[in-house]
């Protein structure tokens, strides 16, 4: 995907961020227990964080020294429209999941993403999103009894109602 000594757009910033992040984690790791004992809770975290700091600094130095790639731009090769749409939708999903609940959020997510990516007809997008969501719901909620956040759709009661219907109204 990339040549040895050419720096991709944004790579320098990323490598510096990683180095700073590692330093922060090392500080936090030392705070756990200090250097109290070989068997302390902080021993492995400190070792791992120190390794991260050393390698991240080496990576950052090497990255900063390398030539930037003139043929690539951040907006085309790292975060093109389709990808940032995806990332934005994922973030929106995380925010909306609890207040709206699993069913509406997931449906919106599938629908908007399919529509934005494919540009196909409304009907096609509605239909595929609905089929996908129903199958996921059936497998996870009905077969595996995973209780997702309910939100605004009282699916638990609807499901119980179906259950009673199937068991003959008892």
């Amino acid at each position, binding site marked *: 995907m990339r040549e040895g000594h050419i720096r991709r757009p944004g790579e320098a910033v990323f490598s510096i961020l990683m180095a700073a992040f590692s330093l922060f984690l090392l500080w936090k790791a030392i705070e756990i227990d200090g250097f109290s004992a070989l068997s302390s809770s902080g021993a492995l975290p400190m070792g791992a964080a120190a390794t991260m700091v050393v390698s991240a600094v080496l990576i950052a130095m090497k990255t900063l020294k390398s030539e930037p790639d003139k043929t690539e731009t951040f907006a085309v090769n790292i975060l093109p429209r389709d990808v940032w749409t995806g990332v934005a939708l994922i973030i929106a999903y995380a925010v909306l999941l609890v207040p709206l609940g699993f069913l509406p959020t997931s449906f919106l997510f599938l629908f908007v993403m399919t529509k934005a990516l494919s540009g196909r007809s409304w009907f096609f997008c509605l239909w595929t999103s609905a089929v996908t969501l129903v199958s996921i719901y059936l497998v996870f909620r009905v077969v595996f*009894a*995973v*209780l997702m956040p309910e939100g605004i759709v*009282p699916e*638990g*009661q*609807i*499901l*119980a*109602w179906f*259950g009673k219907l199937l068991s003959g109204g008892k």
Partner: protein
Amino acid sequence: MKKAWLGAVLALGVMTGAASAQYPNKEIQGIIQWGAGGSTDVVSRSITPHAEAVLGGKVVLQNVTGGVGAIGLNKAADAAGDGYTLLYGAENPLLYKVMGLGQKDYSDFVPVNVIARGTAILVARNDAPFNTFPEMLAYIKANPRAVKFGSTGPGGLPSVITAMINSKTPIQVTAVPYDGDGPALTALQGGAIDVMPAVVGAAIENIRAGRIKALTIMDTAAHPALPNIKPITDTHPEFKQYLPWGPFFGVFVKKGTPDDVVKKLVDSFAAGAKNADFLKMMEGRAFTMLNLSGKDADAFLGKWQSTTAWLLQDAGMAKNAPDKLGIPKP
């Protein structure tokens, strides 16, 4: 078209509205504090179907693990107090405040049923140079810090038993931590540790098979499953102060749940705890049935918390002093 849809929604609303008078009208979520396959999980999954039969509803069980059970407890405490979220837990939450593991414990819940308790036993690897509790004390005295005790972290059963022993017969041992009594008992068989304070049910099959040896039962009387093992009070009656003591399992529901819902749950689980199949399973794992609810359960929990919290405090393991938390001295 629009009208029909609206009608359907309305009908649904009326239906669910009417049905909520009857508890339960949807699936109940049951949060198990500990992982699948563990003691709490096995007991919870075994009693629930019998309770469901009386309750007339379905309980969907989920394991929500982590933080010595605090993650599951907090999840149950954050749910609406409507009786649709149950907590299946063990003894650990009663120590959260003392150990600084969280701000919530069973005082945020109403006990539906304190199902059963286990009995602690002291087991040793087969080739350990002692066979009884007094022999062990003598050996430890002669070889300070050489004997390795298995532990499951501060607040776990082994730490409490070790604190109990220390308070009456001070010993110097090295505590090697494991993630649970299962892995620690495995380590005992492999010789990585010498002694393990464990619950009888976890050790019994290995004792029967002669893979480990029992030193003493931490109780005032011999255990029916191991009648030949002498209780610790035979040689050291001073331990009577703490005993009987043992880890327990219970079902809880958030405080503030309507009384009629609590009553229905209490009745269902009390009936479930009497089921013959369930009793047989519990006997096989050497648990002592309690089947407590209401005032009896509160009294049991209060006594357990006071004994244990003060033991940990005296052993120097507590992060917060029990008297500051309003836990009375026993």
